[in-house]
């Protein structure tokens, strides 16, 4: 398809779903949540993502249903616009440009033409609630400049603002006070809680607020876990409040049910509490929700609740407090110790998930496949508790084995270490614990690798540890008279002059094992476990170590802490080349010889793609991220790409994903976001939208011929893309429009006479037009998309075309004469490592 597009860094999903409260559609069929620059529309019944509304150029910060048309959705973003969407079809209806960063959005039904947003105009810390008058006009792009301040000096979080009694008043909380603004009287009442130094009141801070839908009652949540129900607040003196206290930690969010009969609250305890009749004794619980409840929302129909959790999860809960659906994004709550891995079976991305779990995350469908509970202990969510951490994991033998390491260190001398080996069971299609090894090493395990050679007869695992040893574990027969079984046992313990083992790595064919001991790399024969040779560059401890692959399998690469990248030739046992590069991440591509290295400098991170055989990089992309890149991985592609450009050929067979310090998952792409959607999800998208749009295929075409309003044009545009997909894909070819027509309920069909001719026409014409128009239309689309879909990419991405980086060129080692080479080889055979231990 397109080749000469520039390569850009794009977000590839995994963005926060819990950034703001999720919003239900009026019929509770859909749930909307902000997700980075998009708004995602999920089906509450199937948990599937139905639509992604894209159009914002920055983080979406608020979504609300249009109170006057429940089929429309408002959204606001840091890019300073408010957009109105038709969420059923995923169409952008209008864009209102406000101009300044919008932090949250609120809608009320009464003044029909205005919405409320939180902005900060002057100082970064001072936020204001302003009402924005949305001008009425038929044009799509509108300016909304009519702002009027409602409340000043408020909290930034939308949880601290609530509108009550159909927009008669607005309550805002901050620190120790609650302010209520009455729109009719245009007065503000302020109620302050004592914040005195004495211990009892020190945690009186307000954290969130909610208004009763029917009565004049404001519920506020507090730092100490109390919920206060304020009444009579239109009287400055006679106001009164009730306390409800169950939470032992901060109340994160509050929501009233639609009728106002019950109040929902949640916090760090991960328990949803329903207070019925606002009575302390009458409460119901939904416990064990897994992670801190960040937001609670209630469907307008009143049949569903939903909670957003800190582990990037949305749980849809029925009125009787039964969880009915879980929408799980990439868990990014905690630090990633295991790095990024690819499950060889499912091609899913594997990394730390919720506490004690490994998550398997599908990059294609941007959703979590499943969680594997590694630690298998109840997680106690308490501040300051030292938890067992899952620190290392590795897949071996084509996904048949999984090795995990967990540790817990309360004091310096008290290290608890455990290694677990999991066997993939074909029967249950999951991992089953096979061997549990307590204290496999005396100190922290620094590296873990399987021998993944195809011909290896026995699964082998190597662990390297700070205690100065590396251990080889092999699978042996563990059968007894009761059952046949296999288990892992230690086969060999190696060490090198009491240095700490920092890394280990098997060569591609499994014949060699490289173990780095601080500054020294040792090469071991995996058949006999003999030390073959050592390399020492004296350039700092080895941070990364990997063998070359395929044609480059004679090379060993090592990156040191002092910013030197070395490449040794295993045949000559000589340093082939070295380069000055502060490598943070070094990952070999499993499908090619390429190796990706991400270097860190003060301005940002740069990506280098090179082959070990050549000291010159194949490709350099500067400034891929401003932050430190922590982990990276090559993910093999399902369908190979065919970039003809030499610079992009490394992307043909696998894709490189990386994770930055702030845990955004990024990748490289030349394509627009629409194209990135895989065929399966597109088909799904088309099918999901079928119930409402069978006639778009027909009516849309009909109107297109007549030429209608711009709104229709957009829809036509989208329809055509989807229709193109339908035709292009072999799977969808079998689904004719007849099927769609037959699946549509009869009562929503227009008269048959009206339909008939149009339907037949559309069938007849479709082949012709498509075959005729396909090519020009495609180009058309690409152009349009390029022009307005740059939102996905990071602005700072910049391509460096010249591959002749001077930095790398200089460090290439001079060619040596043969005599000199022989001399050197002699020296190398002598073991000088004793010198290091002096």
């Amino acid at each position, binding site marked *: 398809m397109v080749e000469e597009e520039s390569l850009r860094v794009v977000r590839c999903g995994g963005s926060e779903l819990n950034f703001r409260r999720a919003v239900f559609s009026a019929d509770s069929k859909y749930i909307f949540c902000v997700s980075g620059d998009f708004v995602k529309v999920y089906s509450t019944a199937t948990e599937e993502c139905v639509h992604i509304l894209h159009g914002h150029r920055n983080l979406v910060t608020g979504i609300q249903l249009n109170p006057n048309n429940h089929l429309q959705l408002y959204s606001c973003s840091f890019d300073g616009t408010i957009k109105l969407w038709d969420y059923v079809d995923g169409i952008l209806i209008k864009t209102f440009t406000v101009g300044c960063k919008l932090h949250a959005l609120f809608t009320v039904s009464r003044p029909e033409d205005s919405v409320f947003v939180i902005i900060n105009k002057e100082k970064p810390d001072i936020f204001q609630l302003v009402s924005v008058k949305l001008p009425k006009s038929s044009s799509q792009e509108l300016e909304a400049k009519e702002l009027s301040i409602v409340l000043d000096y408020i909290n930034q979080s939308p949880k601290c603002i609530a509108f009550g009694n159909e927009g*008669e008043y607005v309550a805002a909380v901050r620190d120790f006070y609650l302010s209520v603004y009455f729109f009719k009287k245009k007065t503000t009442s302020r109620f302050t809680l004592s914040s005195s130094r004495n211990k009892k009141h020190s945690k009186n801070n307000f954290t969130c607020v909610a208004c009763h839908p029917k009565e*004049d009652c404001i519920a506020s949540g507090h730092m100490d876990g109390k919920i206060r129900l304020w009444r009579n607040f239109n009287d400055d*003196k006679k*106001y*009164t409040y*009730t306390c409800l206290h169950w939470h032992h930690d901060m109340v994160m969010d509050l929501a009233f049910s639609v009728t106002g009969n019950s109040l929902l609250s949640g916090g760090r305890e991960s328990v949803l509490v329903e207070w019925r009749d606002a*009575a*302390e*004794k009458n409460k119901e619980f939904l416990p064990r929700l897994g992670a801190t409840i960040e937001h609670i929302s209630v469907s307008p129909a009143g049949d569903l609740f939903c909670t957003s959790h800190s582990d990037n999860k949305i749980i849809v809960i029925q009125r009787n407090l039964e969880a009915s659906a879980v929408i799980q994004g990439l868990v990014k709550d905690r630090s990633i110790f295991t790095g990024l891995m690819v499950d060889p079976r499912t091609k899913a991305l594997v990394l730390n998930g919720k506490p004690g779990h490994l998550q398997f995350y599908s990059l294609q469908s941007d959703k979590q496949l499943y969680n594997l509970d590694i630690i298998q202990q109840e997680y106690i969510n308490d501040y300051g508790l030292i938890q067992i951490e899952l620190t290392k994991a590795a897949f071996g033998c084509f996904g048949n084995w999984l090795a995990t390491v967990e540790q817990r260190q309360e004091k310096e001398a008290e290290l608890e270490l455990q290694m677990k080996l999991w066997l993939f069971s074909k029967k249950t299609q999951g991992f089953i614990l096979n061997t549990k090894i307590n204290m496999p090493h005396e100190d922290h395990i620094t590296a873990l690798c399987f021998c993944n050679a195809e011909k290896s007869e026995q699964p082998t695992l190597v662990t390297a540890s700070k205690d100065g040893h590396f251990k080889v574990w092999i699978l042996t027969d563990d059968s007894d008279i009761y059952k046949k079984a296999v288990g892992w046992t230690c086969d060999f313990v190696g060490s090198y002059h009491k240095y700490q083992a920092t890394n280990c790595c098997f060569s591609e064919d499994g014949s060699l094992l490289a173990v780095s001991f601080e500054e020294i790399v040792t090469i071991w024969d995996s058949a006999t476990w003999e030390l073959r040779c050592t390399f020492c560059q004296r350039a700092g401890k080895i941070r990364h170590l990997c063998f070359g692959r395929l044609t480059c399998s004679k090379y060993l690469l090592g990156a040191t802490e002092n910013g030197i990248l070395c490449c040794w030739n295993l045949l000559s046992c000589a340093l082939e080349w070295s380069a000055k590069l502060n490598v943070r991440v070094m990952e070999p591509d499993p499908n090619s010889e390429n190796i990706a290295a991400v270097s860190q400098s003060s301005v940002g991170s740069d990506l280098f793609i090179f082959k070990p055989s050549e000291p010159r990089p194949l490709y350099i992309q500067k400034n891929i991220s401003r932050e430190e890149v922590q982990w990276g991985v090559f993910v093999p592609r399902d369908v190979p790409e065919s970039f003809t450009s030499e610079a992009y050929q490394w992307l043909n067979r696998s894709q490189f994903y990386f994770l930055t310090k702030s845990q955004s998952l990024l990748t490289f792409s030349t394509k627009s976001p629409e194209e990135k959607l895989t065929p399966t999800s597109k088909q799904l998208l088309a099918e999901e939208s079928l119930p409402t749009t069978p006639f778009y295929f027909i009516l849309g075409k009909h109107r297109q011929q007549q030429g209608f309003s711009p709104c229709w044009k957009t829809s036509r545009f989208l329809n055509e893309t989807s229709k193109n997909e339908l035709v292009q894909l072999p799977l969808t070819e079998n689904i004719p429009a007849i099927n769609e027509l037959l699946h549509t309920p009869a009562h929503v069909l227009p008269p048959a006479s009206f339909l008939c001719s149009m339907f037949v026409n559309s069938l007849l014409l479709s082949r012709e037009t498509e075959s005729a128009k396909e090519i020009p239309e495609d180009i058309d689309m690409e152009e349009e998309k390029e022009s307005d879909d740059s939102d996905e990419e990071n602005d700072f991405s910049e391509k460096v075309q010249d591959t002749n980086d001077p930095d790398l060129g200089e460090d290439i080692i001079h060619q040596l004469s043969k005599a000199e080479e022989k001399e050197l080889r002699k020296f190398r055979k002598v073991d000088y490592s004793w010198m290091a231990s002096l």
Partner: protein
Amino acid sequence: MAAAERGAARPTGDNRTSRRRRRRREHCLRTSGLEPGALPGQSMRARAHVWPGRREAGAARGMGEFKVHRVRFFNYVPSGIRCVAYNNQSNRLAVSRTDGTVEIYNLSANYFQEKFFPGHESRATEALCWAAGQRLFSAGLNGEIIEYDLQALNIKYAVDAFGGPIWSMTTNPSGSQLLVGCEDGSVKLFQITPDKIQFERNFDRQKRSTIHKMIVDRQYMGVSKRKCIVWAVAFLSDGTVISADSAGKVQFWDSATGTLVKSHLITNADVQSIAVADQEDSFVVGTAEGTVFHFQLVPVTSNSNEKQWVRTKPFQHHTHDVRAVAHSPTALISGGTDTHLVIRPLMEKVEVKNYDAALRKITFPHRRLISCSKKRQLLLFQFAHHLELWRLGSTVATGKNGDTLPLSKNADHLLHLKTKGPENIICSSISPCGSWIAYSTASRFFLCRLNYEHDNISLKRVSKMPAFLRSALQILFSEDSTKLFVASNQGSLHVMQLVEGSFKHLHAFQPLSGTVEAMCLLAVSPDGNWLAASGTSAGVHVYNVKQLKLHCTVPAYNFPVTALAIAPSTNNLVIAHSDQQVFEYSIPDKQYTEWSRAVQKQGFHHLWLQRDTPITHISFHPKRPMHILLHDAYMFCIIDKSLPLPSDKTLLYNPLPPMNESDVVRRRTAHAFKISKIYKPLLFLDLLDERTLVAVERPLDDIIAQLPPPIKKKKFGT
């Protein structure tokens, strides 16, 4: 003689005292905004010890070094509160206790307990109410309705309702009729006539013709077998019935249809009492867990007239059952088994910050239960039904300021004197020489002669009491123990001459014509010439004992007198009032002294005026005529009349005199009030001699330890 040193064995660990101190400090903070960091007692330089009956010496420097007997063996436990009734007209509160005592608190006069009616074993009060203006009625388990005479402080009459024990009583809104509910299921209606009550009719137990039967749901947190008892009901003028029951529910019923309107489950324990405000916009319930819940009628939305009852604030000031609650216009009043009377102001109803805006917890009676014989170092403790006589311990050790001295001789329990009959002791006194004890119940007056023979004591009762001396409200011996002054409940004062083993009635000062007000407080001058007596409202009368006639009357003041004393040598009468004002009146000159005028001109320190417990005792230092010693339950103060008064800007409590700076600085910072808060709750403090103080404390923890255990509640995190 009973076993001695009952209190000595009681552990008084440091953590207990410090906790107590902290709690009280908080209370002071709430009520008067004291500096919590200031160390009490420094200015006195009289640091105390912890052990009961043990002495301590202070370094002899400055004006106020004392050895202090810190007495903790007064084993007094107030009886629990059974009923509370608030009278809106006079702003008075009647409180009845489980032993039958009825106390009247004047809410306008800084919550001073101005009157009390002694208890009676057979008269357990179950109901208390004000009717027909300011008349107080009570009914109890002996089946009698009693009206109290609030002037003469005795029982006016008792009428048997003939229905067995009476469990409840109420008046009609106009206060002209009295309705009592009896054990036999009947409800009896009485008409209140100007001087009595008249039986009018009897409502028998309804058999069939019940209009509505409101059945309370017995479901109780899964336990359905337990019987649900409705402990209290209230009927509002709009027809709503509020019920409080043993399942912990407060329920609202529509009396017209008999249907349940709303139900609030507020506690796991019983809801025992209910009180509705006069405006019927708020009510209060008390529960067996010691929590008091406030309910308010609030509008549902600001622009509609629809209102609903909402539970607003819980108050946990009690540890035990809240048996009775009352609702004054500005405060919620509650009392219960833990013997505290708690007055919680409603801040939204309080307009200015004054006495009404502070939370109060009244535990001890505002009168003296202890008298002291200075000569023999004896303490007489008054209990409900007996008297205890103790001899203080002694020490030979000396020590630094603040040291606890070991006892060389422990305190002795000399005498345990039980009264006959069911009546409670009203008052008691021991003569300064220690050889006479006098006490009185509601119907009998007792005078005893004590003879000391080494370690043995013999007691001889003086018989042949005159008929007019049936009961006394206050008894006082003269300083030389030759005269006995008795304030009887008819308003007259009797003067008696005590001679070896017998007595002679000298004179009776009759009340001024037209008044029947009883005298409650007496004071006699050390030279025996002057007698001052004060009632509950009128001024203080001063009598000349030599000439046996009324000498003068100190002008009446708005607030009742809480303590009286006449200074030696100068014969100045010092009067403390319930609003914390202290006057000094010169008896010979029949006018206020210069110092008193100066004090009135400048005014007391605002923190002094914000104190909430009345001054219960005043005494003088025999060698330092400029000093006035006075104390209330939480502090002890020496007023040095020679020093300037503190202004509002200076620190009232403990302006620490710098030890090593010049006297000029010290003189500049020093002011007349030297306050010590070491001893609390302080029931009695007096000078035994120039160098020795005796302080009687009654720690609240010791009282709670003697109460039945409270309902166990699970506390989070334990």
